[in-house]
């Protein structure tokens, strides 16, 4: 189990906190989605959790052991897939994995060739990584993270730059990793992905967690019934999503209908993205 308690962090030379009093827990074998727009503090939290940024304030505990007490061997237990592909461009995909595999001392690991096949890079294994497309690089980074069968996976935007088919493939691997028993910390602003695979999601904005629950509970809380209304206000077309289970939204909906300025109206299920916008007043991307 992973426990993060009252984590705060400010970058040197900055007076504002990049992460402010963040706490959460992740049960073993669960997928925890960390959702927020760019610059919200997602990567900072992840970097503190994996020891790349120093722990300034708060606690990070893995299976009852504080992060500070975990030595370098802790890295044998985790796999990290970075948002921006970071690979040796002069080496081939296969050479990249062989090299990286050699850094870990683990009992069981997947053969580099096999992992490349899994992520759909089997045919490109002997091509230099520098010649890969952005999506291929992303998959190579993902393959590198899961190759040594880590207990904990940190996946930062694993689907970025991927086409829907390949994205589906990676999503399936993520779910298989969960079945295997891996705990997964998924950082993303892709709400659909979070909705589909996460057991729990936390919304982070301006360094603070503003909501945290299972996707289903969040949706229940804000109401599953939503209406997207396009209306004219001061000669401008405005779009608004209203949750009919919330009093103030219902009143606004009635107001709009009575003024007669409504142009289009669609009923739909509330999405995590809409809930996020509701909570923060800002979008995710």
């Amino acid at each position, binding site marked *: 189990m992973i426990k993060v308690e009252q984590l705060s962090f400010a*970058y*040197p030379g900055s007076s504002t906190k990049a992460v402010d009093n963040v706490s959460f827990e992740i049960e073993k074998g669960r997928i925890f989605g960390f959702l927020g727009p760019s610059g919200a503090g997602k990567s900072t939290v992840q*970097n503190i959790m*994996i020891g*790349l*940024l*120093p722990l300034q304030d708060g606690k990070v505990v893995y299976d009852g052991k504080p992060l500070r007490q975990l030595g*370098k*061997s*802790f*890295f*044998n237990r*985790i796999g*990290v897939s*970075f948002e*921006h*592909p*970071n*690979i*040796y*461009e*002069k*080496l081939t995909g296969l*050479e990249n994995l*062989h*090299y*990286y595999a*050699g*850094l*870990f*001392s683990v009992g069981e690991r997947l053969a580099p060739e096999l992992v490349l096949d899994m992520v759909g890079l089997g045919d490109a294994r002997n091509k*230099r990584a520098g010649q890969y497309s952005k999506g291929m690089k992303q998959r190579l*980074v993902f393959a*590198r993270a899961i190759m040594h069968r880590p207990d904990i996976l940190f996946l930062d935007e694993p689907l970025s730059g991927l086409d829907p088919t390949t994205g589906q493939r990676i999503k399936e691997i993520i779910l298989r990793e969960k079945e295997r028993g891996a705990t997964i910390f998924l950082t993303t602003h892709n709400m659909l992905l979070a909705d589909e695979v996460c057991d729990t999601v936390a919304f982070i904005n301006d360094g603070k967690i503003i909501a945290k629950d299972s996707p289903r509970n969040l949706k229940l809380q804000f109401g599953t019934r939503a209406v997207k209304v396009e209306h004219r206000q001061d000669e401008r077309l405005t779009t608004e999503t209203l949750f009919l289970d919330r009093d103030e939204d219902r009143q606004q909906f009635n107001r709009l209908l009575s003024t007669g300025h409504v142009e289009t109206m669609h009923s739909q299920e509330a999405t995590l993205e809409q809930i996020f916008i509701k909570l923060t007043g800002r979008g995710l991307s």
Partner: protein
Amino acid sequence: MREFLNLLKQDLLVSWRNGFFAVILLLGVGMVLLVNFALPEQAKVGAAEYIVDLTNGRLVRSSLEERLGADAFLQSEAEAREVVESKRNALAIVFRGDRDNPGITILHQGNEPPKAINALEAALQITWLQVADLGYQKVHEQVILRPDLEKPPFSKSMLPLLMGLEVVMLGFAFISVLVFQEKAEGSIKAYRVSPRGAWLYIWSKSLAMVLISVVYALIITVPTIGLNLQWGSYLLLVALTSLLMTMLGLFIAAWFDTLSEFIFPMVGVFAVIGLPAISYLMPSFQLPIISAIPAYPLMFGLREIMFPTGKTGFLLPLLITLVLETVVISLLTRWAVEKRLMREGY
């Protein structure tokens, strides 16, 4: 150990793909051509001395012409003044008078150290006594510790200098390339979240660079000196100096963000490291600051190994100094790598 070899292999592979080996081959061939064909066998570094003999009976010229060559003699004092005036490294000596009433004039630039002119004056007095056959009491004897020494030709004697300037710099420049490449492509981030720490990172890269430097040294040495060499001492000295400079390169590179930033300080370091070349070309002048620069022991150590004078026990103190310096630099490098490369946010 397996992790280390794996990493070393990868660093060598990246070096190969970066064309490092092609670069050393190109440079090495250039050096060999320079030493074997372009540099002259004989060359004199330092002041050019000219003599005007106006003595009765031309006493000086008749006894010294054979040794100094006819080119060293000028016809008149006016000519001597002209030569000294126009050639900025020239000085002229005018002998006049006869055995009973001799006179010597030294025409010099004025930039020579005063002690050197005093010494020249002393040498001229004694030369006069000899050429005028005046006889004098010699109060000294020469004791030569190794009388059978052969001096290598000028061209070959430049080898240790070239090696000191080139081989030493190689690791310094190349390791920075690897570091900035990893920074730019972000692959260093992936290393950060592996269980291997700064030491393995430093040593695998450094040793890869040492291997390349040694290959470079061999490319230059074998075609110029041949195979008759004390290979153990030679390889140890080259490898250790290269290791020291490579770690220094890593230490400095860690503080910069891009290669373009680093390139200017790098040229500066090259300039400083090149200073021992002065001592090498003018070995009678010695300055403690210069002998502390790693290229100094490398140049002179290599000279002794390539052209042995029979010195014994010179290598061990050199190697010990290098090892101690390497230990200090490696600790500094570890600190810098830990602080600047193994952490996020820089």
